[in-house]
């Protein structure tokens, strides 16, 4: 049952990532609340960004519980997180991680965490801009859904 054991290890390690991420956000919240800068604490994640990529404005905000937000040219793209296997194209070993999908990258989850994939949300934003080309997101892209 080597494969099963490996899968379980992968799953547990994925759960570990989620827990660690949640814990880190929690600690950050407590620290902010104790400081004089409390009113700005909600926007304090250093991974947040607001910049231009290929003539489109990309804006990403990281929130507690992994409920991240993304806007492209001020239009919302609803994100859904799923726990899923990844088969990296660089040939590295398959692993389970937390990936983010949307209406636009529906079969192509992008990993976002606070360690190896801390730039995941920006990577996702750029991927969407590349897919959009000259077009913009429509209202359909902003609709939330559950997996």
């Amino acid at each position, binding site marked *: 049952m080597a*494969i*099963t054991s*490996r*899968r379980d290890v*992968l*799953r547990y390690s*994925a759960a570990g990532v989620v827990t660690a991420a949640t814990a880190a956000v929690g600690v950050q919240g407590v620290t902010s609340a104790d400081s004089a800068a409390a009113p700005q604490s909600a926007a304090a994640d250093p991974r947040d960004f607001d910049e231009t990529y290929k003539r489109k404005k990309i804006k990403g905000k990281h929130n507690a519980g992994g409920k991240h937000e993304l806007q492209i040219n001020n239009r919302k793209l609803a994100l859904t997180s*799923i*726990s*899923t*296997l990844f*088969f990296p*194209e660089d040939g590295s070993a*398959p692993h*389970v991680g937390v990936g983010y999908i*949307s*209406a*636009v*990258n*529906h*079969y*192509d989850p992008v990993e976002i965490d606070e360690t190896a994939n801390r730039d995941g949300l920006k990577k996702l934003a750029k*991927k969407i801009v*590349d*897919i*959009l*080309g000259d*077009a*913009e*997101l*429509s209202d*359909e*892209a902003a609709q939330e*859904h*559950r*997996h």
Partner: protein
Amino acid sequence: MAVVRKSVAAMTTAEKTAFINALRQFKTTSVSGRSYNAYIDLHITFFARTSDGISHAHQSASFLPWHRAFLTMLELDLQTVSGNPDIFIPYWDWTGGASPFTADFLGSITNGSVSSGNFSPSWGWSIYRSSIATSFLQRRLGMNASSPSAATVTTVQGVTVYDQSPWDPTVFNSYRNRNEIELHNRVHNYVGGHMGTREAPNDPVFWLHHCNIDRLWWQWQATRGIDTYQPRTGFTSGVIDNTETMRPFSTATTPSAVRDISNLDYSYA
């Protein structure tokens, strides 16, 4: 009527024309209470977890039988709308061979807006519920991913367990999940544009891709056994059991009921 689903490579010009014209006709003509766009609605609705707490179409055990039923329903609707009982859904073997993206079939533009030729608006193909604000079908072949290799197909086809708990995208030792992620997802991303979106049936190649996925499952069944769906009856929470009806299909459209394609009036050549 029983049909033989052929490879794109084996289709005659007349068969290609009949297939694309039936799709175009179904865009604007209702049969059995639905037209083509209903399939886009169904794909969007049943991709998400529905109110019964089940993911019917994707990221779950019923991924393969759900799409088998979905394709069978469309094939019948195309036969009905065109009055041609010989219409079949062809399959696209994306590991090599004939491309469906030709001027005489699904259109030859694969690097952005399909603005002319087959499946352009002027040809008669409108886009529905697009998450990309556009009136043109979008394709970006190869921009985001490469197509699966024959070696990857062999590896996936070699997984002997149909599926197992937790019946989701994390299972490694699962034919269903490996097919879904390594083959199915990757080809959606390889074609790109609308094929990479939740509303993927806007691109008619959706059907040719899923036909190949269904063919691979049927080949897998020929080796591992036709009656191999998991989970078996037992009302596994949040998952379609072998004898549980898959929504939105008619009552008794269960994984068990669609396991044998010889009972579904089609075969593969």
